[in-house]
């Protein structure tokens, strides 16, 4: 199974040692469970060594940190919209009517020791979590790692991304502050806009007409129970499939070893990989701890408690929902009524387009396999330029998201750029189509050129090899 040197004792040059306590413990356990055989397979598994394989690990570590800090927060948070009077130490809100949920977040931020640190680490980790997933999925996409036999794991990964987005939205809505309340109001409107079933669905989710008193309690159950449970299930499946299918590897090889479709070149899981990953986990935690301590995030006391007739401005969601916000802002003022059925102006930008985009993204492995008629197993990755059409489409999609995200902050941008917000919206309506097409074409062209260049460089060498 593995190379012969695996079984060679590492103590070859040293005299045999007397059995240690560890040896005895391992022996005791192994006689009863046979676990050494399994553990050996695990420890001796070969992991290819490339920095880009660590991106998914960063997401995994963020999940762990989210659970750890999140559990701490649950001890103090009250998922309750009952009105109370704020009497804490933050002067500007003294005597204000707030919900018990908002009050508990204020207490957590100002009175519980290390509470603000934990809250901010939790929020920062959520921001980095989604970012890590997005960068990870870009790596998978542009190197073709999703191709057969890994389509199932692509689907599991897309599911995890979706869960992470919903977990983020439900999480930052919990403090019941003015900004998050605005986000929930928009969410309610988006659900309501679906023809025929929208109002029903919104009433089921929100428990009645917005703002319902049950909402925070429901979001809480989703955020701390259902979503994390689904995510840990998804992560387990994701990792098990990865384990059994083994990693992909980049073309080329390492040292004298050549990467082939039939082999894996890398280092053993133990000790090198485990130590490196553990070190990475600690380093990520360190960055998040410093961010949580030093960089303010979601200062709910600045936004104030939720009041249904007020709104905070400018109001932007967390970065990963910015593209949806942008879609809503540049949506056309179109609301036709046909045979008594009104199609709300929200429906197209908020439901139809995201469904198409996310649907194509989800089904991408199958779309590409059909388009290229390539139904073979692939264990060797492609460099992005080796699939120029995919490169172009991916670059176009990223541009699409970036333009929309910028459009989602058009009011902030207008102030910075000193132009009218209306002009920015009008520009974004054009750029959201034109720019992705342009960037996609350029990326495709660059990919083709790079491919030709590599071909030119390689040909003489191969001729030399075949001639010798």
């Amino acid at each position, binding site marked *: 199974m593995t190379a012969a040197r695996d079984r060679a004792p590492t103590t070859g040059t040293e005299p045999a040692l007397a059995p240690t306590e560890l040896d005895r413990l391992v022996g005791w356990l192994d006689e009863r469970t046979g676990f050494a055989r399994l553990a050996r397979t695990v420890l001796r598994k070969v992991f290819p060594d490339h920095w880009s394989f660590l991106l998914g690990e960063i997401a995994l570590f963020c999940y762990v940190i989210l659970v750890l800090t999140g559990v701490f927060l649950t001890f103090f948070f009250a998922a309750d919209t009952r009105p109370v009077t704020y009497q804490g130490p933050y002067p500007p809100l003294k005597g204000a009517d707030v919900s018990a949920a908002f009050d508990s977040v204020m207490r957590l931020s100002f009175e519980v020791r290390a509470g603000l640190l934990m809250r901010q680490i939790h929020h920062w980790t959520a921001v980095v979590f989604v970012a890590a997933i997005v960068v990870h999925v870009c790596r998978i996409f542009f190197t073709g790692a999703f191709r057969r036999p890994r389509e199932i794991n692509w689907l599991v990964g897309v599911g995890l991304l979706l869960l992470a987005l919903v977990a983020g939205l439900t999480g930052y809505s919990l403090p019941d502050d003015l900004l998050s309340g605005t986000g929930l109001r928009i969410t309610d409107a988006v659900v309501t806009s679906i023809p025929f079933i929208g*109002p029903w669905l919104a009433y089921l989710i929100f428990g009645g007409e917005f703002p319902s008193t049950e909402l925070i309690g429901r979001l809480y159950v989703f955020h701390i129970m259902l979503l994390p449970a689904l995510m840990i299930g998804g992560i387990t499946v994701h990792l098990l499939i990865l384990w059994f299918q083994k990693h992909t590897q980049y073309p080329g090889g390492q040292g004298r070893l050549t990467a082939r479709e039939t082999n894996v070149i890398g280092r053993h899981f133990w000790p090198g990989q485990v130590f490196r990953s553990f070190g990475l986990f600690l380093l990520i935690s360190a960055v998040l701890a410093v961010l949580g301590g030093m960089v303010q995030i979601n200062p709910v006391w600045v936004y104030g408690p939720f009041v249904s007739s007020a709104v905070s401005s400018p109001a932007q969601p967390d970065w990963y929902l910015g593209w949806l916000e942008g879609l809503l802002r540049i949506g056309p003022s179109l609301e036709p009524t046909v045979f008594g059925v*009104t199609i709300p102006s929200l429906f197209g930008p908020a439901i139809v387009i995201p469904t198409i985009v996310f649907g194509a993204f989800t089904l991408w492995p199958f779309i590409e396999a059909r388009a290229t008629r390539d139904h073979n197993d692939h264990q060797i990755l492609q460099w992005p330029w080796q699939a120029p059409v995919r490169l172009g489409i991916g670059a176009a999609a990223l541009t699409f998201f970036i333009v929309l995200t910028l459009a989602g902050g058009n009011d902030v941008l207008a102030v910075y750029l000193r132009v009218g917000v209306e002009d920015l919206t009008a520009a974004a309506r054009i750029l959201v189509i034109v720019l992705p097409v342009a960037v996609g074409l350029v990326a495709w062209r660059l990919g083709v050129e790079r491919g030709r260049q590599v071909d030119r460089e390689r040909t003489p060498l191969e001729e030399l090899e075949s001639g010798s």
Partner: protein
Amino acid sequence: MRGRQRIEWVIAGLFAVTALSGVVLLAVYILGGQTQVEGILLGVALGSLGLGVVLWAQELMDTPIVIEERHPATSSPAEAADFQAALTEEAGFTRRRMLVGMLLAAFAGLGAALAIPVLSLGPAPGREQFTTSWRKGSRLVLGDGTPIHAGDLPVDSLVTVFPDDAIGVTDSQTLLIRVPPELLRLDPARAAWAPGGYVAYSKICTHAGCPVGLFRATERKLICPCHQSTFDVLAGAAPVFGPAGRPLPQLPIHMEPDGTFVADGDFPEPVGPSFWNLTSGGAG
């Protein structure tokens, strides 16, 4: 070997930094805590531990590059055949088609019955989508309950008002705006709804439901801060820019002899974000 020894010392030093900053972190916490200092100390403790562990793996461990063969995932034909036999033949699924069909039907029926409690999560959307708390005779009052008088409001300014018996109720929040009456271009049928240049529009944006909180007095336009839907106050709050697809509903009002304002009924259209059957008037 000398290099390795030096690295060992570096790693040991990093671990010492972790131990030390951990103790200092504890002391800071006990002395009352300070978010920034705690964050930095925690970062230093975790960071130097992480750096030490990575250095250890990179510099001190012999982790040779090895090669492992892959094995095709597909099962052997015999295994696959045996699996299929176990799945269908031994259970007799292929022979008892009718029974299998009924079993699936039973599951479907039970599943439907078990899924039904989901409907308990919320009431059916009924007439309340189409109505607000405004009624004929509701007096326009401010958020603190005081009635608004003509003359309280300078020309080209606005206030948020509620019905006197439903203060703060979300779907009833309304903007009372005073504009020069001669500039108004309302629908002739609604000419009487603007006594003395006072017009009342629902404050909830017809796009995504945000409170329409911004007023550009020079152009007499209302702007929603969420997605910049812009409504022309003079033209019945018709959308003139942004994503909103229909006007803000107008509240029919009149002025009482004492200068206060009273509604002549509810909004003629549903307020807030649009939904598919909003033109049905709640009949459907």
